[in-house]
């Protein structure tokens, strides 16, 4: 059984006990524990069930590579699934549950899959769920959904907040082990601005556990001294609990800082995503130990040798009293020695190499450990925990020589450099045959914009494993990184002399024993999290999967949340072996960010709740809110759709607003309309190109409506242009078009007509704009007083500067409703003041503010088009019978040539007409007008579609606009238009101008 030792525990504060719960059971741990070490200390060997076979699984590793110990952490709004126990720092009150079990962890029904394992081979899903087709939806999918997936999705809103942080450095060092510390020191001493980040809460990495000496002193002394020195340097930033998540083009990288995961009640953001620009990145990310592939290598109690050592030294926790060590390399001997040192039994150390280890073997033997060379594990005995191992020869097929009782197994298949961050942006790897691992190929780094490498690797991540070699490498890389960042050191830091035990080369052991038959291979796991075994990869190879990328997807090897940190190398070596090719020929799968999963909250950053998205407000917005306006989104604006009164439906409110506007007086907040100043000697010429009609002939003081097309001839915007003076125009755009049309103008000015003398300025937000509409519009303005707004003083389609009630304004006499109408532009800071004055002065006329729906209905009654309703990016002005707005005199304008092309000039294009329903009902929005017959796809042919449709309170019936084939020639014809409600509507084609065709109402 696993338990807490009286010795060891360098990271613990044994003075502070902490309570936590696992599956509802209360446990005790110490401050400094990880959840994994605390679970082991409480003999909780079984921590989860595997994904596919629901096999019992225990903790395998001690760090970010852990595949098994995933828990659902926290409750309610603090719940998060798939949290690795090995990287979760223990805190008081921690509450977690294991995953993928039903009904309980100890007794799991899904484990039946384990008995069926031979019916669930590689590619099972692809092979099984092909036919019959209907079975997928009704039979397979529900079962797969029930059994698949590890953690449960959170149900509550996340209680925490998150943020981003932009930072810039000369050199960023990822990994705070001895290599990272030394590289950071070397770069910082050269004068570089350095960030050193470490994903755990502790500096120094593995070295304090692995031992050795630097400058004749224990590594702990070096770590303390290096830290002290770095902390004292102005140009150095140190961050713990911050993972190098991804490396991207141009020296961009992400650092994932976990601020309150270890103290969830602390104020402040939970995670901070550092968005970093680095001139140079040094990855000092260390190495990950590989498992060995033997039967039963997934039984709880079988752990990585390095992890077992970590738990003893760092947390004072043993995985078992009797630990069998099995290895293909020297490092695992350190585990055997550490166990021995802490009073635990190592009944045997099995070294798969016939020649055994170097100096460490002598040490082990001297410590009284039985070392067996050329031996292997035939199988591990036990179910929910290890009970013993059967020993065999590595060279054979697994004939059992001896059985030994044990409660844990420490395995080591060698160490793989963590090359992920090096590889994210294209760093290449090379196969090191002697060390049996992929290491970075320093001659092929990720390249920056200048064609030079911007990532360097230091220490074990670089494939350097002796402490002396690590320190030398880290020093050189740190100096080189500073130099590559443009900083040359006055004095270069010298590498300290370091010593560690000399090691013999590991042997390439991809299967144990090497001749293991099918029965053993079926229990030898490669990928713990996705339940991929040696037999699965072999089967894939047999079935013709040669590419490692295809094999990955076929077998799901390396596709789980751990992204194959333990399994990839073993898996591709197995594939290479099965294909009878060299490992480099098979290659690796692609390393993609993030290194380990990061929270979605961190990615979203601060964008939640009130700052999820910017909401644009006009200067009159607060008034609308106070009135309880019903808003609709228009771009990022919220515009009042209508102002419902107590007991009123929205439809009733819209009718009331329209009736009152047509009868007396309405007000519209039109502030969102785009307003762009176009100025310069060539401004007229420029606008003649931008609009389809002539703008250069407009006289100062006058307004003209214009259409804007893109170079493909399609309508993109419309609005009223006012000429301010000889050189200056003010162009009104649609609300949604303000930024787009400003960009469109600048695009043409900067890229095509760069020699034209025109400047533009987007002054949309400088002005609040209020439409004062209705027969009483003039009266109310005259009541405010200050300028001449009489019929003669300010004619239709004229503008004038002046004052109203002492407020400086510009009044445009334009109408989008068909009524007598003035649009009053006023500096935004005075917008609300003018609005209030208009309401006050308009009270005697029962003034009513109206919303966008009333605006739409009134313009439709007048047959005015709306960009986005009558147009959809495929409509040209001719479709809308707007030839009158297309100049025939102009030599050119944007869209002119396109509109002459055959398809655009085709008389069969659908054209705008009005529709009135025979029974007064309202046509469904967007409805199609069917024609006889069907098209090539068997769909009904169509002859038109409804573009706008409303109930007109003015006319008391449903009115609509539509684009209809030969529409204008078919006046009076009745069309049948099916709705989505099963009804078929009948509507008569008519003139789209339903109201006051002669414009008598607006010309008063």
């Amino acid at each position, binding site marked *: 059984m696993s338990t807490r030792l009286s010795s060891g525990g360098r990271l613990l504060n044994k003075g502070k006990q902490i309570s936590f719960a696992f599956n509802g059971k209360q446990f005790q741990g110490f401050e400094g524990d990880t959840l994994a070490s605390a679970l082991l200390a409480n003999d909780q060997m079984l921590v989860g069930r595997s994904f596919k076979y629901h096999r019992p699984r225990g903790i395998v590793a001690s760090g970010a590579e852990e595949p098994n110990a995933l828990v659902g952490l926290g409750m309610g709004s603090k719940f998060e699934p798939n949290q690795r126990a090995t990287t979760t720092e223990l805190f008081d009150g921690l509450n977690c549950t294991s995953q993928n079990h039903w009904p309980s962890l100890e007794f799991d029904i899904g484990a039946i899959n384990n008995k069926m394992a031979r019916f669930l081979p590689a590619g099972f899903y692809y092979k099984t769920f092909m036919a019959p087709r209907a079975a997928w939806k009704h039979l397979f999918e529900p079962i797969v959904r029930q059994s698949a997936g590890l953690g449960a999705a959170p149900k509550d809103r996340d209680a925490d907040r998150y943020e981003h942080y*932009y930072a810039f450095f000369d050199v960023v060092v990822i990994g705070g082990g001895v290599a990272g510390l030394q590289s950071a020191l070397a770069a910082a001493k050269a004068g570089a601005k350095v960030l050193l980040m470490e994903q755990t809460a502790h500096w120094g990495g593995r070295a304090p556990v692995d031992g050795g000496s630097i400058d004749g002193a224990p590594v702990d002394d070096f770590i303390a001294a290096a830290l002290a020195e770095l902390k004292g340097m102005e140009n150095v930033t140190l961050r713990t609990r911050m993972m190098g998540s991804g490396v991207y083009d141009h020296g961009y990288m992400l650092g994932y800082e976990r601020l309150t995961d270890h103290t969830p009640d602390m104020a402040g953001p939970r995670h901070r995503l550092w968005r970093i620009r680095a001139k140079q990145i040094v990855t000092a990310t260390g190495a990950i130990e590989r498992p060995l592939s033997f039967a039963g290598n997934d039984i709880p109690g079988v752990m990585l040798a390095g992890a077992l050592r970590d738990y003893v030294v760092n947390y004072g926790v043993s995985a078992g009293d009797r630990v069998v060590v099995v290895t293909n390399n020297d490092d695992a001997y350190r585990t055997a020695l550490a166990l021995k040192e802490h009073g635990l039994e190592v009944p045997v150390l099995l070294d798969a190499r016939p020649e055994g280890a170097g100096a460490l073997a002598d040490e082990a033997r001297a410590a009284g450990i039985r070392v067996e060379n050329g031996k292997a594990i035939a199988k591990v005995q036990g179910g929910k925990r290890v009970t013993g191992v059967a020993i065999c020869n590595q060279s054979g097929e697994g004939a059992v020589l001896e059985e030994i009782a044990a409660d844990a197994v420490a395995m080591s298949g060698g160490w793989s450099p963590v090359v992920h961050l090096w590889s994210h942006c294209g760093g290449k790897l090379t196969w090191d045959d002697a060390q049996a691992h992929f290491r970075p190929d320093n001659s092929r780094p990720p390249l920056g914009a200048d064609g030079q490498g911007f990532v360097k690797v230091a220490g074990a991540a670089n494939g350097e494993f002796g402490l002396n070699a690590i320190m030398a490498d880290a020093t050189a890389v740190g100096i080189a990184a500073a130099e590559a960042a443009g900083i040359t050191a006055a004095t270069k830091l010298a590498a300290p002399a370091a010593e560690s035990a000399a090691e013999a080369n590991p042997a390439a052991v991809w299967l144990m024993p090497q001749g293991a038959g099918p029965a053993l291979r079926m229990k030898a796991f490669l990928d713990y999290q996705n339940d991929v075994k040696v037999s699965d990869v072999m089967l894939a190879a047999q079935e013709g999967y040669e590419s490692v990328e295809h094999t990955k997807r076929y077998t799901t090897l390396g596709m789980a949340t751990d992204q194959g940190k333990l399994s990839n190398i073993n898996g591709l070596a197995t594939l290479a072996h099965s294909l009878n090719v060299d490992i480099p020929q098979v290659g690796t799968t692609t390393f993609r960010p993030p290194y380990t999963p990061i929270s979605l909250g961190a990615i979203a950053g601060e964008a939640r709740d009130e700052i999820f998205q910017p909401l644009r407000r006009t200067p009159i917005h607060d008034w609308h809110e106070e009135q309880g306006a019903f808003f609709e989104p228009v771009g990022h604006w919220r515009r009042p759709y209508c102002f419902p009164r107590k007991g009123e439906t929205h439809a009733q409110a819209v009718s009331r607003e329209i009736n009152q506007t047509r009868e007396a007086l309405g007000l519209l907040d039109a502030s969102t309309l785009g307003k762009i*100043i176009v100025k310069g000697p060539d401004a007229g010429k420029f606008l003649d190109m931008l609009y389809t009609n002539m703008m250069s002939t407009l006289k100062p003081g006058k307004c003209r409506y214009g259409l804007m097309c893109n170079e493909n001839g399609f309508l993109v915007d419309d609005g009223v242009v006012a000429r301010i003076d000889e050189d200056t125009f003010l162009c009104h755009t649609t609300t949604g078009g303000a930024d787009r049309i400003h960009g469109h103008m600048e695009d043409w000015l900067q890229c095509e007509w760069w020699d034209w*003398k025109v400047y533009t300025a987007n002054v949309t*937000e400088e002005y609040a704009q209020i439409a004062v509409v209705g027969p009483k519009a003039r009266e109310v303005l005259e009541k405010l007083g200050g300028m001449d707004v009489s019929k003669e003083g300010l004619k239709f389609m004229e503008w004038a500067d002046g004052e109203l009630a002492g407020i400086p304004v510009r009044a445009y006499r334009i109408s989008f409703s068909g009524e007598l109408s003035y649009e009053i532009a006023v500096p935004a*800071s*005075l917008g609300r*003041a003018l609005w209030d004055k208009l309401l006050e002065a308009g009270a005697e006329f029962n003034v009513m503010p109206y919303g966008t729906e009333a605006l739409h209905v009134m313009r439709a009654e007048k047959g005015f088009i709306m960009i986005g309703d009558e147009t959809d990016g495929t409509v040209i002005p001719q479709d809308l019978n707007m030839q009158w707005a297309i100049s025939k005199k102009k030599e050119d304008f944007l869209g002119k040539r396109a509109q002459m092309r055959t398809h655009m000039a085709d008389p069969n294009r659908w054209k705008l007409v009005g529709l009135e329903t025979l029974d007064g009902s309202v046509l469904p929005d967007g409805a199609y007008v069917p024609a006889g017959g069907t098209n090539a796809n068997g769909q009904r042919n169509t002859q038109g579609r409804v573009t706008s449709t409303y109930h007109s309170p003015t006319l008391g019936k449903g009115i609509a606009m539509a684009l209809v084939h030969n529409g204008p020639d078919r006046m009076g014809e009745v069309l049948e238009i099916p709705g989505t409600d099963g009804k078929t509507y009948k509507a008569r084609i008519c003139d789209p101008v339903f109201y006051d065709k002669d414009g008598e109402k607006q010309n008063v």
Partner: protein
Amino acid sequence: MSEALLQSALNGAHSDGFVRVEELGVQGMITLRGDFASAGFAAAVEKVTGLALPAQRKISIGENATVAWMSPDELLVLVDYASVDATVAALTEGLAGEHALVANVSDARAFFRLSGDDGAVRDVMAKVAPVDFSPEAFGPGDIRRTRLAQVAGAFWSPEPGVMQVICFRSVAQYAFDLLRISSETGGEVGHLG
């Protein structure tokens, strides 16, 4: 009479986290576009503001006016709100012979001030704008026209411990909330401070 009716975007809203954020009320701002290489343009700007043209990404702060570089052919001139019309008129007159555009944009903007410990102010800004806020990269006399999270913005530091921030008026509430939340106690970064 209209002065009494003036309403800035947020009526002086403020918050106190580990950095103080306040909306500063109405501020005179003028967009000025023209040819920087033209002697007449530079002369007109200097005559009206008393300041030479700022270099790229620089801001010149004078007694009665501030001139900021916005783009290779655009400046932002800041003056008292009350003297905007006069300044616009003076610039327009001074640039009579030039191809230039002068536009009053005072009301199109919201204006904020962040104050506190210099490093803390910089840390708050570094949460919302993709800019190197280290003192050696961004000091007095520098201006950046970039974004504040999801909206356009510009900012400069007139003195240590102070950052002036402008954005469009319609998104003033968003910008304020963004800066308020980013400066909430508990969110200290301790990197630049």
